[in-house]
């Protein structure tokens, strides 16, 4: 039995008497401790899929199973990092993290929660900024706080919806390495099960064990591709290798092949 099973999910929207299908028969599994990326062009329904896993949306058909049990709404077994605005602007970084911990661990005292918050803010390198409000932090720092909160909540599953999508290239690279390092840990604890949505192919290759590629109109799974690179991964070393280039090209041709199929041409040069 897989940790997370996505079974035949379809989502239909009706807007002004016109219905359209955002997702159609999407099925795949994520194993315990696996890092899976969902990749696809914008509008392929990958965010819709994630919102179903989060419990904010319900599918028209199909089900999501965690440890074999179907989910109903949000749950304490899943932690979420959104692209932006996931922090509460009226709480300091520290309070934001502690607030997340409080919702899951009601048994802890306030001091214990704040201690956990401090510990995780230190892990993401923000111990000096813990008493700042989100408006006083840069976009990258805000995402660090959001990641610290999701990790501090210590949920079994992490759902990440383009968490670095709005961050400049340099900081994105730093955050990717940080996430990788935090997820891999020191090898003693069990790894978290992660489902990571992105439209960045390099990001997906660097981070994941497996990539689920989606196509749009309607959103369906085109292919599941295991990432053949050993861990721990180092970005600068990895991108130098020939194997990386070949794998990347393979993914790209799949990615754009989708577009070629749709416009009916066989020669799409990019």
């Amino acid at each position, binding site marked *: 039995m897989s940790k997370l099973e996505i079974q035949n999910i379809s989502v239909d929207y009706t807007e002004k008497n016109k219905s359209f299908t955002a997702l159609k028969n999407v099925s795949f599994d994520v194993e315990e401790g696996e890092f899976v990326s969902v990749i696809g062009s914008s509008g392929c329904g990958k965010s819709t899929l994630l919102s179903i896993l989060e419990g*904010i949306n319900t599918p028209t058909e199909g089900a999501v199973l965690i440890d074999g049990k179907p989910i109903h709404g949000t749950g304490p077994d899943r932690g979420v990092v*959104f692209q932006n*605005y996931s922090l*509460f602007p*009226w709480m300091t970084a520290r309070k934001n993290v502690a607030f997340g911990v409080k919702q899951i661990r009601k048994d802890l005292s306030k001091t214990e929660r704040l201690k956990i918050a401090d510990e995780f803010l230190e892990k993401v390198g923000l111990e000096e900024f813990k008493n700042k*409000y989100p408006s006083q932090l840069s976009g990258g720092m805000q995402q660090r706080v959001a990641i610290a909160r999701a990790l501090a909540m210590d949920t079994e599953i992490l759902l990440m919806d383009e968490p670095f999508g709005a961050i400049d290239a340099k900081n994105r690279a730093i955050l990717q390495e940080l996430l990788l390092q935090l997820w891999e840990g020191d090898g003693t604890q069990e790894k978290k099960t992660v489902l990571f949505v992105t439209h960045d192919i390099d990001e997906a290759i660097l981070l994941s064990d497996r990539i689920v590629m989606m196509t749009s109109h309607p959103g369906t799974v085109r292919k599941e591709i295991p990432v053949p690179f050993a861990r721990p991964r180092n970005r600068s070393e990895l991108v130098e290798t020939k194997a990386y280039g070949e794998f990347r090209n393979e993914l790209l041709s799949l990615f754009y092949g989708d577009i070629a199929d749709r416009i009916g041409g066989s020669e799409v040069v990019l």
Partner: protein
Amino acid sequence: MTLKQRYLRVTNLLFLILLGVQFLPDKVRQDPETGYVIGLAVGVEVLVLIFSAVIKKSQSQNLFLDIVGFIYVLLIAWTLATAKGNLLREVLFPAPGRVLRQLIEDREKIVVNIRSSLGIIIKGYLLAAIIAIPAGLFIGWKNRLGNAATYIAKFCSAIPPIVYIPYGIALLPTFQSVSVFVIFLAAFWPILAGTMSGVINVDRKVIDSAKVLNVSGGTMLFSVILPASLPQIFVGCNQGLTVAFVLLTSAEMIGARAGLGYYVKNYSDFGDYTRTIVGILLIGIVVVGITFLFNKLQQYLLRWKR
């Protein structure tokens, strides 16, 4: 800041002009009590000098000096128009010194009246806030109720609350309770409307991120929706406060036996315009004071906003 920047200011020049004007010959029959104006001016100027020496930020120093400058200009014009020029009717427009003397002589009576006014406004306003904010949160959160309630709140807040005064007088035992009731009605609708619009306009993303944290219903309402809509709630509270002030003095002028509105109405009925002006000035000072404190509270509670 150099010494020149600190002490050589237009405000200080105005102070000297104000002093000089006081020594012009009087043209009125009643004693204009020039000594009181000189006393006030010297007192304020001492404050100015202390402030100039203590305050580091040139921005807040400028603000303070500019305000004092305006007061000096007003006092100069007032002195010239009354005591020294007799341009206005003496009975209706007493000289500033006479008003100051009256203010000091009546201080005990004034404290009683201010206390009465403050008591009414605090009771009525707090009662309105305590009921309107939770009600607005709840109604705004229940979408369907919110849509209907917005129209009703608009209707009710459009009626000038002063029209309720006759009902209040007929129904309630004391005049104080009538005033509290009217203030309550005046402040209630703007605060309710502000809270509801705050709740309705809370960013979907904020609600979603609270949902995925598995917050309970109570936590959602009071730890997420309430702070998220606080900026809008304050817009409503500010409106409510303004209406409350207007209503308070109007209500007190109709039938009260205490309060600043009563003070003004009572003495103007007797033709005592010195005391009428004292009352008018006091109303202004009290309103500015409360607004100042209220703004400080708002700044503190919304310190996370940039």
